[in-house]
């Protein structure tokens, strides 16, 4: 690849702006945050353009920077209000899900055939809506883990939280999301 292939910051915005924004929106779930992180990405790319190796496509290179910036944004939030003592309601409290003897109050239902479900747009639409119901910070941590597929160790290191902390928060997010899906999907 020649240096020309990298293009100029203007062409990055024209050709990849929408793709970067979509990616950011899926992961941050917030228009303002997504716009901000796209801008940060392009500024960082501007500074780092001399180091662009030309191996990957420009889009892949930019998405790589974007991922780091999303993580940075999340870390800044976490610094302002430490994740584990954020004053947020749980995704779903244990008392809500289990009785005193540790049994399900409402046993999880059978959602049917996984392959079929994933094909159905309706399930994905309900999933999206249920993500909105999670407390925002818990949702972002959960997205980082499940959607960006960041591994547990990295998240703990970046966010300066213990694994036990992380597992508890992910558990809460999963319980909350599951409960919402069970209510809105199960037939």
């Amino acid at each position: 690849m020649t240096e020309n292939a990298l293009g100029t910051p203007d062409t990055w915005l024209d050709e990849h702006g929408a793709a970067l924004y979509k990616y950011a929106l899926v992961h941050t779930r917030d228009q303002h945050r997504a716009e901000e992180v796209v801008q940060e990405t392009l500024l960082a790319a501007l500074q780092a353009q001399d180091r662009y190796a030309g191996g990957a496509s420009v889009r892949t290179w930019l998405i790589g920077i974007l991922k780091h910036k999303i993580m940075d944004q999340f870390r800044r939030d976490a610094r302002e209000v430490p994740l584990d003592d954020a004053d947020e309601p749980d995704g779903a409290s244990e008392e809500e899900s289990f009785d005193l003897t540790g049994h399900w109050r409402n046993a999880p239902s059978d959602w049917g055939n996984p392959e079929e479900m994933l094909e159905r747009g309706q399930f994905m639409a309900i999933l999206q809506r249920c993500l909105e119901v999670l407390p925002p910070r818990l949702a972002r941590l959960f997205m980082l883990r499940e959607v960006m597929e960041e591994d547990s160790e990295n998240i703990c290191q970046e966010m300066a939280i213990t694994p036990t902390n992380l597992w508890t928060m992910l558990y809460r997010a999963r319980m909350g999301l599951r409960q919402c899906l069970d209510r809105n999907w199960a037939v």
Partner: protein
Amino acid sequence: MKMLTCKDASHLISERQERPLGLRERLGLRLHLWLCDGCRNFERQLALMRQALRNLGRAADAGGADLTPEARERIRKTLAERGKHEH
């Protein structure tokens, strides 16, 4: 070995997505799942949620979402200003 409650089992099923379980945990969980329909459904639900969220990320499908013209303009200006400093 003390029987796991559904609450215990649900924690293990969630944590199994984060770390390998110990032998005792695995055996306890297997026994519990063998006996408990609810937890078996829970296990399948979590697996399905994980798969669905991965698909979401890989497709990065936010529909026809795009930057607003205003945001695009703002970013263009910021880039131009910063570009001048670079050169």
